[in-house]
């Protein structure tokens, strides 16, 4: 190959390499972007303190709670209430229930999401099972509280906030996970 051609081939291959790297870099970038901007309902999973905020009694926001289970996860995972009406600013508590239906010890992790996405900044949780993992023995059941409050700055256009939790298998022991499925 001529020298000039070789140089040009390497330059173009460089672009190909850069774009490949960029594609995989999009994954973390995308998550960072969504967490910072709060679009897409991605919420920062972090514990917040309940500051004494003024409760806006004049406003009612409907909070819907949805639970779902990742395919192959042998647990029962439910919420005791599917819908509650809350005032922005007040601290609310809801209960979730989980039961390990399999014959093995399994660790679960719930991944939260908030819709509509513009509400995701205004939902603050002081206590949530989604902050850490739960390990349940075979047949064990557990009631898990979740405490949250809605920031009174929630945009006026939002009347309903949906909080969903999907539970997936986080058992590190692969044989246990395989047996569970």
């Amino acid at each position: 190959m001529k020298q000039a051609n070789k140089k040009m081939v390497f330059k173009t291959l460089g672009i190909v390499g850069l774009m490949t790297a960029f594609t995989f870099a999009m994954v973390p970038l995308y998550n960072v972007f969504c967490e910072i901007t709060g679009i897409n309902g991605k919420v920062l999973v972090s514990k917040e303190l309940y500051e004494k905020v003024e409760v806006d009694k004049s406003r009612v926001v409907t909070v819907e709670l949805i639970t779902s289970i990742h395919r192959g996860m042998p647990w029962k995972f439910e919420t005791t209430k599917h819908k509650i009406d809350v005032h922005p600013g007040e601290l609310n508590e809801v209960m979730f229930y989980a039961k390990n239906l399999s014959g093995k010890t399994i660790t679960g992790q719930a991944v939260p999401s908030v819709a509509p996405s513009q509400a995701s900044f205004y939902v603050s949780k002081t206590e949530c099972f989604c902050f850490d993992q739960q390990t349940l023995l075979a047949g064990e059941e557990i009631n898990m509280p979740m405490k949250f409050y809605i920031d009174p700055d929630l945009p006026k256009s939002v009347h309903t906030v949906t909080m969903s939790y999907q539970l997936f298998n986080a058992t590190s022991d692969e044989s246990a996970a395989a047996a569970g499925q």
Partner: protein
Amino acid sequence: MAHGHHPTGIKRWLFTTNHKDIGSMYLWFSFTMFLIGGAMALGIRLELFQPGLQFWEPNFFNTLTTMHGLIMVFGAVMPAFVGLANWLIPMQIGAPDMALPRMNNFSFWILPFAFTLLLLSLVTPLFPDGAPNFGWTFYAPLSTKFGPASTDFFIFGVHLMGISSIMGAINVIVTVMNMRAPGMSLMKMPMFVWTWVITAFLLIMVMPVLAGAVTMMLTDRHFGTSFFDAAGGGDPVMFQHIFWFFGHPEVYIMILPAFGIASHIIPTFSRKPLFGYASMVYATASIAFLSFVVWAHHMFTVGMPVAGELYFMIATMIIAVPTGVKIFNWVATMWQGSITFETPMLFALAFVVLFTLGGVSGVMLAMTPVDKQYHDTYFVVAHFHYVLFPGAIFGTIAAVYYWLPKWTGNMYNETLGKVHFWFSIIAVNLTFFPMHFSGLAGMQRRVPDYNMMFEGFNQLSSIGAFMLGFSQLLFLYLVINCIRGGKGKATDRVWEGAEGLEFTHLPSPAPYHSFEQAPEVK
């Protein structure tokens, strides 16, 4: 002479490093894929002739739409343009051949294997759960969690096509940058070369993105990653972002070379130089640049913030500006020209008019509030078929009619060529125009059944599709007939108004090694 020995028979084609041989193989491969993908389209139209389920199971119908899209995009349109680039670029820039002839051979011979992998998924004994059925856009998690086993063959097929396209693009860039005849500065390059260089840059930038997306699919399916799985911390919407970051430049990859072709044919038959050459170059480059920053207009319904929707809407509409520049330049080229209507000119004119129509429905789709209603309806199908069939495919057909006498040394049958044109243009409108109406009335795409009220439009579309499909066999006959002698010898200039090195400096048929000595360009 070193190049005196040519192997004959099958070895000529297997081992060839000649740009004309490889170009021909690309074009024949593309036409074969065009017929296979076309047969699938006819299968779709057969089912949609009447509401209800007549011919196919819904899952097989989904397979047909998926495979039709994949084969037409990656098997028909893209290889056709690479084939034209191979044939034309060395002749147009005054080079003997492409810069990297062995890689050229390799990039072609990957393709039959890629498409064998893809088509194997249709073999039922191998894959009882069927071929890919998730649409050519293969959105996750439909293609990851719920994709059939054959999805892995599809993934490796896409990897191979990607490698082939990247190598083809690198070859074009190196050839154009290093092998131009003395005196041919960048701003003297023929438009087809310009549009192809820009296309090549798009290709090397977005094919890795596609390869990355399917690799993530592969690891999600088999190696326990969760790129697109919300439960594992991934995000299915991210798949759409990555896919369309590839997908939108891809649609310009499928049209820019056709822009170049029209910029050769219209001046020739108007007997005037191209109006606004420099603005054509800059317009093409701006379209290519803008194609990278508008991808999310394909996904207005995923729930974006209003600011995002506004940005993508406005950025998308801005593309109409450089595209409009091109359209007006073609019209201005024809203005007061002494126009004749040979077959290539007819196809090029149909290209300008119908591509504009597809572009206008594109501007409609760019409007977020309107798009939310049009999304995933036949209006979208009408839009992208108007830019792809009368755009990319008419462009290719026009190029073949225009340069075939130069390639073979023989004239094709002009009367039959015109018959082919009139059948094609009537059929293409009969097929795709009614889809605007059925789409606006709410008919969804990718569904084998539909409401009774859409029956009339669908019957028109189906009749048109069969007419369109079968009239392309006339094109096949015309090309073979021309290769075998056609209507007599072509002159070296071929067309009265033809410009460019391939017409002014080379005999017809063009010699095996285009320019043994570089021509002088003033």
